[in-house]
């Protein structure tokens, strides 16, 4: 989902506020909650948990601290999995949120073949996927051209694993994007963003040579247009 959690590249959050001599936990409830979640592992996998955080309604999401979001997500999952009822939580004052969307269920998907489709050096384009459910393909790389740098091996696919659709294990690659490809000409010319992307997020791109030929064609069209 294109939730507020997918905030790479956004403005409007002001400066980064730092704290000197910051404690590990800022209050005992943070520590208890952290421990609670680690000790109570029956609430689902990490993808389900992340997706529950994503489904906190955006206004509440932005007005919650990190551990408040954990608290909301844990309650969402406990209710949805039938381990605690909303009424029980309300009765005790635990204030469970109403998620912005219900959990999506997927039929188990076939596994990807184990053979890597891409190799280091391959030019790729991140697909323009906008799934309704969980994904680890952020908006800021979609449709953008990058280069595969490393093959990290085979991992469960978050887009299915968060929705009962199975692990659909597949290769994850370290993919490098030029900052200018992501953000346009105002970005620093030397900078890169490296991000880890599952094979299903990628498609092969035409090799560089033909891309630059395309750019030359577009430049020619632009020159013609500006002569009008």
């Amino acid at each position, binding site marked *: 989902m294109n939730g507020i*959690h997918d*905030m*790479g*590249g*956004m*403005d409007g*959050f*002001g400066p*980064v*506020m*730092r*704290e*000197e*001599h*910051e404690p*590990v*936990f*800022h*209050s*005992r*409830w943070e520590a*208890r*909650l*952290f*421990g*609670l979640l*680690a*000790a*109570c592992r029956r609430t689902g996998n990490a993808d389900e948990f992340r997706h529950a*955080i994503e489904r906190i309604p955006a206004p509440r999401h932005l*007005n*919650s*601290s*990190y551990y408040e979001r954990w*608290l909301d997500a844990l*309650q969402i999952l406990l209710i949805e999995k039938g381990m*605690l009822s909303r009424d*029980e*939580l309300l009765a*005790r*004052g*635990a204030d469970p949120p109403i998620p912005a969307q219900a959990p999506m269920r997927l039929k188990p998907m076939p596994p990807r073949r184990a053979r890597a489709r891409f190799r280091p050096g391959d030019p790729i384009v991140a697909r323009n996927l906008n799934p309704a459910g969980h994904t*680890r393909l*952020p908006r*800021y790389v979609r449709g953008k051209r990058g280069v595969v740098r490393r093959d*990290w091996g085979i*991992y469960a696919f978050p887009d299915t694993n968060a929705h009962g659709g199975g692990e659909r294990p597949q290769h*994850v690659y*370290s993919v490098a994007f030029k900052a200018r490809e*992501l953000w346009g000409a105002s*970005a*620093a010319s*030397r*900078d*890169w*963003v*490296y*991000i*880890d*992307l599952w094979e299903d997020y990628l498609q092969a791109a035409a090799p560089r040579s033909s891309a630059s030929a395309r750019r030359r064609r577009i430049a020619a069209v632009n020159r013609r247009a500006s002569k009008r």
Partner: protein
Amino acid sequence: MSANHTRAPTGAALRVKALEALLEDKGMVDPAAIDRIIDLYENKIGPRNGARVVAKAWTDAAFRKRLLADATAAVAELGYGGPEGGHLVAVENTARVHNLVVCTLCSCYPWPVLGLPPMWYKSFAYRSRAVRDPRGLLKEFGLEIPERVEVRVWDSSAEQRYMVIPRRPAGTAAMSEQELAALVTRDSMIGTAVIAPPSHKAFARS
């Protein structure tokens, strides 16, 4: 100003208390297990682990090589591992490349070597800006990256957890591994700081 403080903490404290009581009633959690986990992250796991890793990499070329090839296995030699550390990756700052770690989609962080992340790492401001304007962001941290140096931002979107191996400062040739470890700051292993030479130690805090 910070969004992290807008809701009254007492509200959250009551909510957590209620939730913990309910889960205990149902036998779904063991309070002693919670205590043990809290103790682990408050007292045993933290950036001193990472500092030891860095100091060893600076002084032991074979370890540095193993660390860059497979950081999970290399830090396990020092006894480090556990949740959020199954797929560690060490990236090295050089004269030509400055690395910066972020997780734009949540707040992934290499717990076994750096402990739990600071608030600012989890803040919306850091998550949103690190991938788009790393140089502007680093300036706010007091760090100006020369134009000729490549800034390489690592967005932790999958299972890989990144730690930065900062550059060893000048004037430290005579220092022991332990002395070197004391120079290494948490922020330098995220990439929002560099390590000042020992004479400027005052600037290397936090």
